[in-house]
C-alpha cells in the first residue's frame, strides 16, 4: 500500500513537472483559481515553476544609477553600468542583483518601495550625503549585425525619484 502510494505521488509529481516545464498547462491556470495552490507548491519544491532559460530578456537590461549629493555641493555618482557593484564582496552576491533589477522593474508599486529601500541603504552607507536621486534605465544592446554597423546602445530612463533628508 505504502509502495503504491509513493509510486502514485511520484507519478503525479513528474506529470506536473512535465506539464509545467513543457508549457502544456493553459496560462490561465496560473492566474485563475489554481494560482494560489500552484504558487504554494512552487515555494515547496518548484514543481510548478516555469523556467525562462535566457530566452525573453537577453539583449535588454535594467541599470540603476544613484546620485548622492549634499548641501556642500559634493556629489557621488554610482551606476551599475560603470561597475558599481552594490557593495558586494564577490561576483556571486552581485549576480543576485540581476534578479532584483528585473523584479523591481516589473511592478510600479514595487519599484517605488524598492527604490525607497535601496536609497535608505545608500544614505546609510554615505552618512555625509543627504539627498539621493535613484534612476532606472532600460538598455537595449545591438545585435551582431547592428554592432558591425556601429549602432549605439539604446538607453532610456523609465523611472526616477529623489529623496531628501532636508
Amino acid at each position, binding site marked *: 500500500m505504502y509502495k503504491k502510494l*509513493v*509510486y502514485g505521488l*511520484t507519478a503525479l509529481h*513528474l506529470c506536473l513537472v512535465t506539464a509545467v516545464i513543457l508549457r502544456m498547462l493553459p496560462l490561465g491556470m496560473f492566474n485563475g483559481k489554481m494560482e494560489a495552490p500552484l504558487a504554494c507548491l512552487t*515555494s515547496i519544491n518548484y514543481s510548478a515553476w516555469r*523556467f525562462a532559460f535566457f530566452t525573453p530578456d537577453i539583449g535588454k537590461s535594467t541599470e540603476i544609477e544613484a546620485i548622492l549629493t549634499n548641501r556642500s555641493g559634493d556629489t557621488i555618482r554610482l551606476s551599475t553600468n560603470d561597475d558599481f557593484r552594490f557593495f558586494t564582496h564577490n561576483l556571486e552576491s552581485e*549576480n543576485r542583483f540581476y534578479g532584483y533589477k528585473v523584479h523591481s522593474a516589473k511592478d510600479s508599486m514595487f519599484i517605488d518601495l524598492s527604490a525607497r529601500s535601496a536609497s*535608505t541603504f545608500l544614505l546609510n552607507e554615505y552618512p555625509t550625503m543627504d539627498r539621493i536621486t535613484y534612476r532606472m534605465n532600460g538598455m537595449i*544592446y545591438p545585435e*551582431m549585425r547592428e554592432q558591425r554597423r556601429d549602432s549605439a546602445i539604446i538607453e532610456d530612463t523609465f523611472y526616477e525619484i529623489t529623496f531628501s533628508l532636508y
Partner: protein
Amino acid sequence: MDLLNNVRQRFNEFFTRPADVRTLGLFRILLSVFLLFQALLWLPDWANFLGREGWVQWELTRALNQFWHLHMEVLYAWVEPTGMTDIQFVYLFFWVYVGAGLGLLLGWYTRIWAVIAYLCHYVIMSTLPTFMYGVDIFLHISLFYMVLMPVGKVWSLDARQGRANSEPTWSSTLSIRVLQIHLCLVYFSAGYEKMAYTNWWEGNVLYRSMVQPDFRQFDMRWLAYVPVIPMVMSWLTMILETFYFIGMYVPRLRVYWLAGMIGLHLGIGLFLGLYLFGLIMIFLTVSAFGMAVYKDLRHWRINTRYADESFSLLPQKKRSLG
C-alpha cells in the same frame, strides 16, 4: 502486441531494476558541498541581504509573502523576547544552515539534517524573493529531494554506523530515476525553447548575453565580426540540451555528452560570470549520470586492455595473398 509488451517491460525495468545507490551518495555529497561553498561566499554579504535593514528591508519583503511563506522576521519574533538582536539572529541562522549542510555532507542522521537544511533554505527563499535566481531554485529542488530520498545509504556515517542499509531498494531506484527524469525535462525544455527563437539560431542571444553588463566578463564585442563562432556555440548548446535525454541514456555516448555538458556550464561560468549556476548544474548532471559514465569508462578500459592483450598474446593467424 509484442512491441507493447516490450515497451511495458522496459518501462517496468527502468523503474524497478536495482540501480547503483552510489548515485544518491554522490548527489548528497556534491550538493551539500555546493551548499556550504555558496553559504561561505554569501557570508560577507549575509546581513546586507537577509538583515532587517538590508538592501530590501524585512518590512517590504514580508509584504511580498503569502501565508505559506516563512519569513526571517517571523522566526525572529519567536526569539526576540530572549534579548537577541536581529543581526545576532541572522548570523545564528546562518550557522544553523551551515551546520545542517555539514550534517548532510557527513551523512550523520542524514534525514534530520536534510529537513533542517531544507527549512532554512525555505526561509531564505521566503525572505529574499527578489534576489533569487536559477542557482537557488535548483538548490531548493535538490534539498527537497534530499528530504525524501534515501541519500544517506552510502558514503555516510549513517551507513558506517549501521543506521542505513547500503543495498539498493525500490525506493533508491525510484529516487535515482526521478532525479534523472527531472534533469532531462529541464534540459529538454531549455533546449527546445531556445530553438523557437531565431535569435538563438543566429547566435545573437549568446553574443548579447556576453556583452551586456549583467553578465559581461570580458570585452567580447569582437565576436560580432566573427558571427560564426556564437552561431556554432548556440547550435551546440541547443543540441546538447534538447537531446540530453537521449545522450545520457546511450552507453558510451553519455561519456561525451557529460563532457559536453560540463564544457557548456564551464563556459556559462567563465563567460557569463554565473560560476555558481554553472557549478550546480555540473554537480546535478554528475550526480544523476556520473556513476553510469564511470561504469562506461571502466568497461571501456577493461575492453581496451583485453583487446590489447589479444593483439599481443594470442597467436596470430598467418595471412597469405595466394
